[in-house]
């Protein structure tokens, strides 16, 4: 009797898993073995290991690394200071609020700010540096991405810091540890899980963002995501696109395992 009801709930859910989780991944894998004419081939994989694609993969990882590193550097102190403020919940809400606004609108705002006569350039002129080409450079790409990802980095670190027992910090200080030693030996190791999940939440999307590269970086920065979008929607070479997607999935799995929390 009981096993009957159990099976009934499983039917629609497992159907969903098979159709929209398992099937799409298998299809990507399947398509990666076909060329643009629909012939079975291993050529896509051969092509992926040519310098052109390897360099693209490397630069994509480099940008994702830069974006993650900068977000972490900015977000950790922010999260730390947030836990010390009076109205924590309100400030936290204010950090989260921008994430509810469509990413494209935020990217679009930077088209104006970084434009030739925009706010950033007027500021640069004011402090005597003079106008610079900001839009369509790798700087603007990294800046906008960091801007977008900061809240996603702050949130898990904030949660980890909140869970930290404050008496541990007091104990370390009582035993004569300096502020820096306390941070390095007590606070940071205990919030490492938050840092890891923050990095995970930033690094994987940073590999695959294509709308920001298209809007902000022109075609100067090509990430794995941009390449996939290009192959699927512009050149219609689904085989090559799927091959890159397969490598992106592998990279994702590696990152998940590397930053996974062992429980």
């Amino acid at each position: 009797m009981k096993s009957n009801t159990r099976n009934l709930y499983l039917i629609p859910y497992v159907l969903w898993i098979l159709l929209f989780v398992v099937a799409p991944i298998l299809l990507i894998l399947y398509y990666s073995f076909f060329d643009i004419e629909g012939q079975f081939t291993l050529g896509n994989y051969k092509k992926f290991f040519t310098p052109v694609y390897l360099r693209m993969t490397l630069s994509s990882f480099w940008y994702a690394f830069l974006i993650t590193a900068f977000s972490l550097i900015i977000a950790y102190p922010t999260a730390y200071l947030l836990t010390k403020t009076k109205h924590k919940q309100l400030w936290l809400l204010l950090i989260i609020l921008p994430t509810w606004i469509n990413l494209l609108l935020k990217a679009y705002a930077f088209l104006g700010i970084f434009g030739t006569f925009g706010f950033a350039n007027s500021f640069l002129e004011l402090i005597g540096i003079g106008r610079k080409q900001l839009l369509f450079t790798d700087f603007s790409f990294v800046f906008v991405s960091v801007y977008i990802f900061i809240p996603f980095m702050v949130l898990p670190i904030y949660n980890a810091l909140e869970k930290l027992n404050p008496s541990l910090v007091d104990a370390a200080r009582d035993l004569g540890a300096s502020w820096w030693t306390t941070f390095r030996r007590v606070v940071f190791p205990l919030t490492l899980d938050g840092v890891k999940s923050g990095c995970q939440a930033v690094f994987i999307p940073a590999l695959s963002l294509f709308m920001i590269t298209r809007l902000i970086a022109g075609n100067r920065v090509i990430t794995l995501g941009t390449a996939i979008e290009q192959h699927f929607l512009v050149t219609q070479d689904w085989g090559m696109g799927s091959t890159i997607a397969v490598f992106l999935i592998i990279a994702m799995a590696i990152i998940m395992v590397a930053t996974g929390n062992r429980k």
Partner: protein
Amino acid sequence: MKRKTKWANIYLIVVFIILYTPIFYLMYYSFNSGGTMHHFEGFTLEWYEEVFHDTRLFIIVLNTLVISLLSAAISTILGIFGALAIYYVKKRQMKNMLLTLNNVLIVSPDVIIGASFLILFTIVGIKLGFTSVLLSHIAFSVPIVVIMVLPKLQEMSPTLIDAARDLGASPWNVLTKVILPYITPGIFAGFFMALTYSLDDFAVTFFVTGNGFSTLSVEIYSRARQGISLSINALSTLIFLFTIILVIGYYFINQRSSRPGGLGGRK
């Protein structure tokens, strides 16, 4: 010590200024009669008028709302089934496997979801447009609902179900009279998250939308690629206001649902 807190405050204020500058920058120039995002000529509402008179845009907004409400409703139902399924599975290995598969779509990059769904719909023969967008929004919202509902189920005491069964309730009664009322806050939260994910999604929709059909974020992207037009600014101001209303609504739902929950715990 005092110096330190001063610097701390300055740091936080700078971060907040950076976070909010682009948003207010957009809103400020939506009132610019000059037509650019750098030189404020004079106050005007003409861009708002343009937005309100744009019937194509109106249809796109309607599409977006219909897609997000429908997909949130359907994925909430599927997600409840999913959470119940995971809850009732007794074998630990099976449970973990289901949870892992559930989380695949949450952590996958949008590009991969979009590309793989595009292949899927093409093979199955679903025409790209309303149906494909709706199906993919349902698909990526289901795991989010499961994640929101499952903790509520797990914190429910199993003796409640046993008691109901002992008192002669049928499985259907147990579900509608005991389980569902208990997990209602989780269901609302899941529905709300699904709604915002759907409203916010760009990348997946962009892949599976085909030609004739468009949602708001796809439309914003294609307009922004053509350069600056202040009607996007006006639109974003309106969206920002709408978002704030949603956030406040969400906040109140949370407040209200946490109160009866607390009462229930006391009983």
